[in-house]
């Protein structure tokens, strides 16, 4: 074996930075959640009349230009935590009420759930690295939106759609924000 010193690896995929990983995860999640939303809408033949009026389930402080990068990350992390909680509840509730399955919808639903969990953890690391307070492992218990408003099946279906729509919305938001962060840090590193 040669005893020469090894050349250091080039910076790239081998040493992927957390913000780059988070951005990749968010982009992947945004694709998958959009597909899940569409799949669910078709599967349940949901009317556009009720979908248009579906309200928000995730509650975070409004975005502001005064927020620093760390605050923006914290806000994003809080929203994703709520999304994860909502998704886990929605999946369990749906399986209870309607029975589980092994089709394309169920597989994609599982993928989104796991991807969202990975993204929450990765963004949590970013928040830590940014010097913010240690993110809570579970979001604060929220009465509103954590369960359907009424026990009817229609309400459950609508609530599931709203949960998936929230995941889709925050996945897209996270993808945009994390892409911006990644690019900013790449530029900083080059300087």
């Amino acid at each position: 074996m040669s005893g020469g010193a090894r050349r250091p690896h080039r910076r790239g995929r081998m040493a992927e930075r957390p913000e780059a990983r988070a951005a990749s995860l968010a982009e992947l999640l945004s694709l998958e959640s959009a597909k899940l939303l569409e799949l669910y809408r078709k599967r349940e033949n949901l009317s556009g009349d009720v979908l248009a009026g579906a309200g928000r389930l995730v509650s975070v402080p409004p975005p502001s230009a005064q927020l620093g990068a760390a605050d923006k990350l914290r806000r994003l992390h809080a929203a994703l935590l709520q999304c994860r909680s909502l998704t886990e509840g929605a999946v369990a509730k749906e399986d209870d009420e309607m029975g589980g399955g092994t089709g394309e919808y169920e597989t994609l639903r599982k993928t989104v759930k796991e991807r969202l969990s990975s993204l929450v953890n990765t963004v949590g690391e970013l928040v830590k690295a940014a010097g913010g307070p240690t993110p809570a492992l579970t979001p604060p218990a929220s009465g509103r939106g954590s369960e359907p408003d009424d026990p009817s099946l229609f309400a459950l279906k609508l609530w599931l759609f709203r949960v998936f729509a929230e995941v889709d919305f925050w996945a897209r938001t996270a993808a945009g924000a994390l892409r911006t962060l990644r690019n900013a840090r790449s530029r900083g590193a080059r300087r």
Partner: protein
Amino acid sequence: MYTYFNDIYLNLLPVYIVFGVFMEEEITESGDSLQSSSCCFPSGVFHCGPENITVTTSGYIILLTWQDDPSCKSVHDVLTYELEVLIADKLVHYEEVAVTSTQIGSTHSWNWSSHLATECASHMLKLRSRFANCTSQWKLEQTVPAAHNHSDLPEVYPRDEVFQVGSRATFCCVVPMGEVLDKLYLVGHSSPKWNVSEINSYTYALTVDLNKASMTSCTDIICKTNTSDNGACAYIGYPPADRDLICETRDFQSVDCMWTAGRNTHLAIGSPTTYQLLESQCAGGSNDRCSHKMQVVSGEWNGTLIAKNQLGTVVLTDRVDLTKRVRMFAPQNVTFNSSNVRLQWEWTTQMYKDLDITCQLNIIDGERHAERQCVGVGLNFAVLNELIPNWTYTVIIRCGTTQHFWKWSEWSSSVEFHTMGDVPDPLDVWTQVKDSQTIITWKVPLPTQSHGDIIDYEITWTPTSKQQKQARVIHPKHSFALSLDSRQDYVVSVGARNKYGSSSPSTITIPILNTGSGGVKLSRTQGSNSGFNLSWSASQTATGGYIIDWCPTIGPCTVDWLKVPPNETNINIFSKDFKDGVRYLLSLHACTHRAPVLLERMEGYFKEKLIQDHLFTLKWKQKNMDVEVSWDPVALEEQSAFIQGYILYYWDNISRVMNVSTDNSHATSLIAKNLQIGSYTFTVKANTAVGQCGATSITATLNSLTDNFIKAIGITLATIFVLLCLIVILCYRNWECIKLKVYPPIPMPVLKDKWSTSLTKQSFHSVFVEMSHHTEEEFMAIPELHSKSEAPVPDFVDQGNVSSQTTNGYHKMPVEKLPTSSTAIPCQTPLLPPPSPPLSSSLVKDGHLNHSFTLNSTDTSVEGSNGYQPQKQREQPEVPENSLPCVLTYILLPQVPSE
């Protein structure tokens, strides 16, 4: 929930008296009032009436329970209760309930299904008793609609209700205060017959014919107002429609029932079908089978299955003796004992040991499979025979009862085993004559024939009158060349050997004169995708059948053959080695009790192929105004199809394409007739069964006959001219020699006086100048003097330059190199002394005949042909060393010793 309510409903059945007769006719308002009770009792008051009234609602159902007033006990006849239902102060239902005297004092119940969900609008219930002409006062009860909860969203009712496809249902939407209904519809139902009606200022009803089952989890009913929207679910489906219950037993400890599931009820979420077998609920979620533990005994047994959902119930029955419906479990632990070729297995059910069992064995040898059947009480083994030695088999088994056979068990798990080896099967031997040798060849035994790895082959050949000879051929070589004496018969035997021993030998007789195909007709045959389909006339000599062998007609041949039984006279021959475009020679032999006899030969192509272009080497020849195009015979190697003839196409730039053809496959020329003068293209093609092919073209230009004559004269004249030129050039180049031959120089007399000597010492140039003034005799001596004054002349002239004289003296001029052999050789060794010089001659200069100067004895002037006038006083230039190559050789002057 409805289900819950339904259960209550069923529990109430024993005390519930059903009087519910839906009043189809229009119900008119009774006009009675609470105070208008009438009575025939003396007291004027009829106290017997309902009390403790309770109203329960769920969806469309209203359940009413009440008790009798204690005073009713005095009534000893049928007591009648009158019920009225009003929605929005309109009477929608009237009914009478009769209570017998024995029922008086107990709790009565009544239920009714409204067309409008009770959540949609308040239902006013009025109840009173009547006996004879007396009636009690009306008791009022009112349902409270759920919509009165003042939600901020529109509310749709009923929720999560189950409906049967084909029914009509009414849904309502209660809009929040201040909002206006925009839409109320069922998702996925496009029926235009929807009827939205206003029940009151904030409640709207939608009546719809439900003609589609819920294709998703449920069907949505959407209510949209000007500012908000909401909805509800409805399960639209079918009642169970399962059928064909069949029950059996496997272990005599339980019964397994199967049925054919009916159509999808579409109520998997709203009201999944439940199954109940022999009064126990079927678990496992299967919708077409269920098991029940019980001891199976001989005799009739009645199996009952109840399939139920909210829309209906189906009861299926199967009456059977379960001992005649035994479906056995598959045999377990199947093993093979190679020493006694026994297959054995085990039963896990003790009851099977007393059963008369039939088992089916499926024996797979890799590609093929065979079935065998064996029978016995408690059967647990089978002996296998006729297996291929040294072979791997896979066996699976299934069994069933012999008596009252019902069904086969499942196949057992497969068992694989390998049989013991054996000596090889006899070889398939054939012979082929190649050149002067007899090739004995045999087919390499297939794995199913070798029964072990072949080691070698033993060949013995015996001339009938001599001692046996023997040789061994190592596997996989499978042929052996013999040089046999053609004057006697030979019997050749070949056997194969493996580690288990040698096969029995296969013999073939080689006849005395193996002269090949002499005298046997050769016919043509045509192959097809399935090979060569051959048929022939039966031969009396073919007692052992026939053998057909085949080989490519051209090229290396590894013979292949096929045996045909004596009673068959046609066969299809196919080999994966057959190639398109290759001609095969097929020979039919009769197998006699001695040597095989050649009966017939055929040749043909498995598939004819177009011959490649540029097949021919074409020549053409003009004959008057015809052109004969000829070619060499086509070699067999180049024929990928039978040539049936040739066709010659020809055309010039103007006329259309013409052709001439022949059906003679041996033709080597075709003639295109009556052509015009000009350029023609000729294309020759071969005609085959697969089309014209092998196209080869040639272009020819036709000339007129006059042109040809003139051309011939021209060519002749040109040839003559060229010949003359050559002669002139030759004469010119060899003029010196010719001249010497014709006019040899006259030798000079030998002079020994001082003049001569002193003259020698003088300059050559001055002598030359003087010479022109001498007499002829003197002149004749000059060459000799000239020569004498020079150094020896080499055998060759200057290679690059030769000097010539000009008015300005000498200068170098390039000249063509003169070949020494053509000029010097004839002159170097004269055979005879030179003759006397002529009176007038050209002067030799620089070793060449100088045609430019002529010396005339009567004329003192020397004039060049180009007008040049040499001056007498001019200094004569020095003669080059290489000049006069001829002179020195034969003009020998006596040498004067130098001083």
